[in-house]
């Protein structure tokens, strides 16, 4: 169990770096890198939540970007109505209300789509979750009121007591705290009795059913929790970008989230975060060199799948274990 402590060490060091470096960027006059870090941390929350079902539960959800979109629209739509009128029952700038809406609608969407999707297995599951993601995409695409494919600009950020989200540092720190919370939540869930069932069902579903667990219900619960957390990440993302478009929900975005989880290391606490960090940095660095950056990016992706089983966390912990 030596690798355990290595893992903890990497996790702590990585999280410390994420806490310290971005404010330094701001104070040294590089606000853009703070923004980059904010986006990265928010996507990391989504990756952490996807990891709950994908990494620990073995449920390859190819539609998780939909929850991010739902969460972002849950900020944008009430703010839009508060600014421009109409739909009084939801019109609001209240951040707590936005979050409640984001989490609630995401959970509901996860409940309905999960109830259908979880009846299927394997590739069917991958593809039906993607199909639901596409449905959400086309749904928002066709709602003219909220900009359709033009997207919706959020003129006013959520109002949160004691915080000013227009302040980039406060927004970053809020996202950071949310990330830590998300990691702790997933970690707690996964070590609980519920988590044992989820992990057990990934390893051997028939066995768990034979023990008397209706794994369908447990998986559905995990799927709902994961969707709700991703919806929360979406609410943060909406506040960060101050802009939402259906394009955020497309299947390629879902694929990117999956890649973050696998790149960093599925079924580890820090893996999805590390994956998000590397993903965003790679994208940023490669695209600053060439407009054909997707070529090396794709090759790296293939390389990771072929050679880095267990992702970067697996790579780091096994390499370091050897003297």
């Amino acid at each position: 169990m030596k690798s355990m402590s290595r893992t903890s060490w990497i996790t702590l060091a990585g999280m410390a770096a994420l806490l310290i470096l971005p404010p330094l960027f701001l104070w040294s006059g590089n606000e853009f890198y703070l923004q980059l870090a904010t986006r990265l941390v928010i996507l990391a929350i989504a990756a952490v939540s996807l990891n709950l079902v994908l990494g620990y539960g073995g449920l390859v959800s190819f539609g998780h970007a939909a929850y991010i979109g739902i969460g972002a629209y849950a900020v944008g739509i009430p703010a839009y109505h508060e600014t421009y009128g109409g739909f009084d029952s939801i019109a609001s700038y209240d951040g707590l209300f936005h979050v409640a809406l984001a989490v609630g609608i995401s959970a509901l969407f996860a409940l309905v789509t999960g109830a259908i999707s979880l009846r299927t297995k394997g590739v069917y599951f991958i593809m039906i979750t993607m199909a639901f993601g596409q449905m959400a995409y086309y749904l928002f695409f066709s709602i003219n009121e909220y900009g359709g494919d033009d997207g919706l600009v959020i003129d006013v950020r959520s109002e949160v007591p004691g915080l000013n989200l227009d302040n980039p540092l406060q927004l970053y720190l809020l996202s950071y705290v949310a990330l830590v919370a998300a990691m702790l939540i997933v970690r707690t869930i996964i070590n609980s009795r519920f988590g044992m069932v989820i992990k057990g069902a990934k390893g051997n579903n028939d066995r768990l059913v034979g023990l008397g667990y209706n794994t369908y219900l447990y998986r559905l619960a995990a799927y709902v929790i994961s969707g709700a957390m991703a919806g929360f990440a979406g609410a943060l993302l909406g506040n960060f970008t101050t802009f939402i478009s259906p394009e955020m929900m497309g299947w390629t975005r879902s694929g990117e989230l999956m890649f973050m989880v696998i790149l960093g290391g599925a079924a580890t606490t820090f893996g999805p975060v590390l994956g998000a960090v590397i993903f965003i940095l790679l994208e940023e660095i490669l695209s600053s060199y060439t407009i054909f950056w997707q070529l090396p990016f794709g090759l790296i992706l293939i390389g990771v799948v072929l050679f880095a089983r267990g992702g970067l966390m697996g790579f780091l912990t096994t390499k370091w274990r050897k003297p």
Partner: protein
Amino acid sequence: MDYTLLFVQTLNGLQLGLLLFLVASGLTLVFGILNFVNLAHGSIYMIGAFIGASLTLWLGNFLIAVVIALPIIGLVGYAIEKFVARRLYEKDHLDHVLGTFGLILVLDTLAHLIWGPEGISVPLPGWLDGQVELFAGVVVPTYRLLIITAGLSVAGGLVWLVNYTRLGMLIRAGASNRTMVSALGIDIQLLFALVFALGAMLAGLAGMLITPITEASIGMGGQIIITAFVVIIIGGIGSMKGAFIAAILVGMIDTLGRAYLADIFALVMSPSAAETSAPSVSSMLIYILMAAILAVRPQGLFPPKARP
């Protein structure tokens, strides 16, 4: 009701369905036999379109270009199998999805580098460029009939290949029992490569056939692959019959939805509401269809028989 229009729209749906079948058949073949999820199948479709279009402009004849381009795209498929896909077979579906997702980025960017971002338009020979009057009042573009003919011939050819040839026998055997095929002394790796190349040729052919209607362009693969997956999921992954029926079903529903949904909606809501909601619903129609079918039949319409 205008039955002439209905007939024309049905033909349109059939044509779209058959084109989808060409893409979906390769996908389902590769999945059924190699148990491999290939998201990059759409990129092969795109490369087929580009190769076909380049050759058409170079040779000045669309049909000759297609005949020459087919073996080339087969070779491209073979190379992809050899260098990437083969290494992924033993891994799980998640790895297939991610690996081939990376492959999409690579192939699309390569196409951008080779052919530029403009896309290529393709001229048709004069005799294909006109219209045919099937019977009084029903005039359809000649080329659409060619697509229907080509799609039906390929479907027939696949039935023959899979059911009545030695390769087909091996394909069926390989699908159900890898060890047995190996035990027969057949090079299973070669068999798999051939199947993959065949899938690539089917996708490439679809790409070549669509270019005279649209054009060869970057990103065209990403659009068709999702629909093709919807088709094979509805049909039951690995089932050729399922792919055929689902492709026709999706083609019909999509076309007829576009054609008649607004009229149908107008029966129950105001015309302006129908006009605005119909396009949104019709773009979601195939996904709704898929979700509905999977809710009732989680393995699709024709799930391949369980392997004991």
